[in-house]
Structure formats: C-alpha cells, structure tokens
C-alpha cells in the first residue's frame, strides 16, 4: 500500500473518532505547550544574559583577581591566612573578607606578555554632585570604558579611547534633580563633584605642619572641611541611559576619565588600607578578539598566581544557571509528555480492539501486516502532530501576548523579552512530538499487525 494512502486513511480514521482524538492530542498539547514556553524562556534568558555581558564587559578583557572567592559570590568555606591586602566587605552576616590586588600586581599584570592595557576598575564614593543653584546629590563615580560605549540620551562619545579629564558622563537619573529640563540641555553644562578624604594620621600631621608654618589657622571651623575635600568641575559630555542589562544597582555611576577616576579614588582612600588596592582589575589582551590569544594570556596570568576569568567564562556561568533552571522546567514538560505517551498507547489499544474486524477485513483483502502497523503508527503520528500544533500555537499566542507585561514587570528594558520563540526550534519540537507519539503507537500497531485475520473477522 502506498504510504500516502496509509497517511490519508489514518487521518480519516482519526476524524471518525474526533473527540477521542482531540482529547488525546490535548494531552500531548499540554506537554508541547510546556516545552514551547520552557524553550522560549530559555532562549529569552540566554539572550538577556548575552546582552548583560555585552553591555557590561569588554570581550577582549580578562578579569583578574587575587582572591578566587570573588568569582564565587565572595563566600569562603574556611578561614584564610591573613595578609594586609585583605579587605572586609559588607556587614553582619553578609561580611566577606577578600584578598585584593596591589599596585605591584597591577604593574606585574601590565608587564605580562600579551597584555595591552590594564584598567584598575576604580570605584569612587562621591560626597556629592551639584551645579549652581541646585541641590547637592549623592553619587558614585567610575572610570569610563571606551570598549563598552554606554547608551547615550544626548551628547556624543569619543570614537576611540578615553574622554578628557575635564569631561563627565552623567546618568539620566540626575537630569531633573540637577535642574535640567532634558538631556540635550545638560550637554556642555558644568557640574561640580566633591569627594572627601578620610581623616588619617598622615592628614593630621600635614595639617599640623601647615599650622606650625603659619599657613593656616587651626581654630577656623571651615578648615577641616576644606582640607579634607576635593572639589572638581566637569563639563557634561553626554547623558547616559541606564541599560536594562546594567549590572549596577540603584542609580548608575557618573563616568569620568581613567586618570580622573584614579585621582579621585586615591584622594578618597589616601592613608587608608584601601589605598591603591583593588578587588579586581581588567586586563585587555592584545588581539583579544581571538579566543586563542585570550586563552594564552589567561594561562600566563594564572601561572603568575592570579585568578582569571574571561568574559566567555562569565557568560558560560550565566548560561549554565539558565540551563539548570530551564532543565528543571523541561523535566516537568517531559513528565507531562510521558503521561501523554501512556494516553496515546491507551487510545491506540482501544482503537485496535474496536477495529479488530476492520483489521481482519484489510488483511483478508491482502493488506500486509507491515502496512497495518504503519496505519496505526501514523494515526499516533497524527495525534502527535495535532498535539504539537495545539501546544506550540497556544504557547506562541500566550507568549506573544504576555511578553510586554512580563518585560515591564521584570524591568527587562526595551528590546528584551523573556520569551523568545525560534521557528526552527518549534519545528524541531513538533517533529520530536510526532516521533514520540509514533513510538508510543508502536505497541498497539504491533498488536494490530499480528492479529490473525480469521480471528479478527470472527470478533463480535
């Protein structure tokens, strides 16, 4: 019998038992629906993770740390040997003690073969930012990284390299509080940044020696404040928009040039144990767009005793988390499918029993056992097809309808969706469901194929 005739006949047989067919297909559909949404969520999460990495890291840079625990949420399972680079971060139960890199380490990394540039990753706690006639606002500052090129609302970024030492990028969150009507208006205007130096023994000695030389009056109440603060005026080069994929919490940091970030950081940490110490630094690899170069540089730094991560490693970690979460949901989808498979086996067994005389007739008329088996397996395939179409289309419609709401609720940002549907993946899922259904139909089909036509024709 021609396969197309078997396909048509199997389709007709299913049509003649519509309700049973639809109910069985719905069982497969539930599995298909779950798997469609799971795969779409996996795609969306992976895409979001990729965007997160792209907008926060330069792929040609390596992240270098002395303490491996930095890459492990900072937590340590056993006490570590003390050295004076250890810094305590956080407080209460969330206290981490981590070894930091020194200026010597920065020099050593910079001199490593294959390393083109090193960024110290300064983070400056700013006392306040203001402009004339406006309020003083809290802020933090970081070094501008040309490789990341933050999204701007107004102004421009240099094509290559750093911004100048007199320029600053302010996040759009500061526009209103600093009295700007819009981003465009802010570009070219000046703002004042004030950072504070902690009162250290060195500062006290410096102050005393100035007073002894008669250069200052120790009774002046403004003295301490003036002595301890550094006030710098910058011109706003651009207004940055906080990307939905930004890793910084709360208000995004102000961005100044790398030398400025260093100057401010050193001023705010001078005389403290934090002076010129870094949890991580970023080492840009020469020809770092080539994976082999990154690997070689990473090996060299690892041999030198540093803990090194490439952006790809970070991406892999994120992808692994997504994959684990996706796998958990997939398991539920597969369990649903297993239940559906038993549904198909049951339905097809009943069908074989109900159609015993029909099978007997077909065999008497010369239909081969192989073709009888194909007929029943194809019926199961049809059920798989129907279930797959019902499940994936329902998932698609629901996903497309809910995507804007989910994006808003999870604050994923414009252009990001949690559920990303890939046609090829959906087709593959449909074929997989058809295959599973076909396999589920194998046992009943075998029973049908092995029926003795004489016995089948005698069935009441």
């Amino acid at each position, binding site marked *: *019998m*021609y396969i197309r*005739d078997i396909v048509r*006949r199997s389709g*007709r047989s299913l*049509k*003649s038992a519509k309700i049973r067919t639809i109910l069985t297909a719905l069982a497969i559909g539930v599995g298909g629906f779950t798997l469609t949404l799971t795969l779409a969520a996996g795609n969306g999460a992976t895409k979001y993770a990729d965007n997160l990495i792209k907008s926060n890291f330069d792929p040609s840079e390596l992240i270098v740390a002395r303490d491996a625990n930095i890459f492990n949420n900072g937590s340590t399972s056993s006490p570590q040997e003390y050295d004076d680079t250890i810094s305590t971060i956080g407080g209460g139960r969330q206290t981490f003690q981590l070894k930091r890199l020194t200026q010597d380490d920065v020099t050593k990394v910079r001199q490593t073969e294959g390393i083109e540039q090193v960024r110290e990753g300064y983070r400056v706690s700013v006392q306040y930012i203001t402009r004339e006639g406006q309020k003083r606002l809290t802020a933090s500052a970081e070094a501008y990284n040309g490789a990341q090129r933050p999204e701007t609302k107004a102004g421009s970024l240099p094509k290559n390299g750093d911004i100048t030492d007199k320029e600053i990028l302010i996040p759009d969150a500061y526009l209103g509080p600093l009295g700007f009507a819009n981003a465009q208006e802010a570009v070219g205007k000046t703002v004042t940044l004030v950072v504070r130096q902690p009162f250290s023994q060195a500062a006290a000695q410096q102050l005393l020696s100035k007073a002894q030389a008669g250069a200052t009056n120790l009774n002046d109440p403004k003295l301490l404040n003036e002595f301890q603060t550094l006030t710098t005026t910058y011109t706003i080069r651009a207004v940055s928009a906080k990307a939905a994929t930004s890793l910084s919490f709360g208000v995004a940091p102000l961005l100044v040039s790398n030398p400025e970030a260093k100057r401010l950081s050193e001023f705010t940490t001078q005389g403290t144990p934090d002076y010129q110490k870094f949890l991580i630094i970023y080492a840009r690899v020469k020809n770092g767009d080539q994976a082999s170069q990154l690997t070689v540089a990473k090996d060299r730094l690892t041999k030198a005793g540093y803990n090194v991560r490439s952006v790809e490693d970070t991406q892999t970690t994120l992808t692994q988390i997504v994959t684990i979460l996706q796998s958990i949901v997939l398991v539920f989808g597969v369990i649903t499918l297993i239940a559906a498979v038993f549904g198909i086996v049951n339905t097809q067994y009943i069908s074989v029993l109900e159609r015993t*005389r*029909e099978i*007997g*007739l*077909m*065999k*008497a*008329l*010369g*239909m*081969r*056992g192989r*073709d009888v088996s194909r007929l029943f397996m194809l019926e199961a395939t049809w059920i798989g097809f129907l279930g797959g179409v019902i499940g994936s289309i329902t998932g698609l419609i629901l996903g497309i309808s809910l995507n804007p709401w989910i994006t808003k609720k999870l604050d994923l940002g414009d252009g990001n969706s949690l559920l990303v549907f890939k046609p090829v993946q959906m087709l593959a899922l449909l074929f997989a469901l058809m295959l599973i259904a076909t396999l589920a139909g194998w046992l009943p089909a075998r029973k049908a194929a092995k029926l003795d*036509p*004489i016995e089948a*024709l005698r069935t009441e």
Partner: protein
Amino acid sequence: MIVVEGVSKVYGKKENRFTALKDVSFELPSSSTVAIVGKSGSGKSTLMHIMSGLDHPTSGTVTINKRNLHAMKPKQMDAFRAQEMSFIFQAFFVEANQTAYQNVMLPLEIAEVKRRDRRSMVKRALAAVELEDKIDTQAGKLSGGQKQRLAIARAIVNKPTLIFADEPTGNLDSATGDLIVKQLFSLNKKLGCTLIIVTHDQELADKCDIQISLKDGKVYSISGAKKGKV
C-alpha cells in the same frame, strides 16, 4: 481452475486435537458459481479460509490457476489475494464513518492501483450495484441491503478472479436477500469471476452451478464438479 487436493486441517494437540477437514479434494472450473453447504461445524468456513489463503492446511494443496497457494511466501500471498480475490461477509464489514467511495476504494489502495484510475473504477463498481448516487454518502447511513451492495461493490471493484461470499444474505430480509443474490449471479456472468458462496441456505445453494456438501469435515456430496483426487 481451482484444484483442492487432499486438504486436511487439524487444530490442537493430543487430547485437544480436532480435525476440521479430512482429505478434501475437488476441482472447480473458472467462472463457475459454487455453494459450500453443511451444518455448523461441518468445516465450511475452514475450507473457505484455506481456499482463500487466510489459513494453512495441515496437509494437502490448493492450486488456483496453476499457482500453489500455500507454497507462496506471505508477501506473495498478500499480493495474490489483493489482485485475485475478494470477500463478502454476512456482517457487511463496511466502515460506517467513511463514505461509499472511501469504502470501495480500500481494495484499490491495498492493490496499489494507480490513483488516476481509481475514481472511475469505484464509480463503475457502485454503478454495477446501483449505488452510484450514494457515492459520497456515509456508509453508516445506508440500509442493510445497501450496505451489502456496497460490500459487493468493494468486492468487484478490483475485478478479482475469485469472490468468496460467507452467508451473504444472512443478515437481510428475504426480499433484499433475493435482490443481492440476483446481483451476485449477474455480476458472476458479467465479470466472469468464480463465485464461492458459503451458506446454510439450500435455496441459494440450488442456484449455484456446483454444490459441495460437507459433513464432519469430509465432502459428503458434490454435484457439478469433479470430486476426489485429481
């Protein structure tokens, strides 16, 4: 020409052993009408099943047009049945949810007849049983007589050389039964096929060219055909 030679059929083993047919032999000319008669348990159906290749004899041979049926491989046997044989049953065995056209199409699909020839063949078969106007009607909506005519159309659509009819009028009232019998005999003459009817109905058997009467698995009497070993 159908030659049945020394056919025996034994079911079961040892104390459960039951002999359904004992050394049955006869010859039937082509295009004849044959009635196999006998009481229940006489071996009528077993003989029909062995003659149609649905069952194997314990011993003996069945030769149809010089082809030894039981020497064929299963695949050859299936193809032979699809090309040369057809069946009509007491219970009609039509698929109620499918149209008359789809029911009659079944043997053509099994025999892998070319698609372009199928529709005309189905139409001709339905016309032969005066059901051409029911071509798109669901079989379940037809009366008992129409269903059996549909089964006859299905049996003749592939122009078989041999039609087996197992109590073809058993489920019909006498008027409808007479009509069906009339059509069967008319088609036998028109198509030149051999018609083998298994029946209890002596009146129907009397209309056939040859009557084979079975009793306890043996040929009790035979009329109009060559009896015994060939």
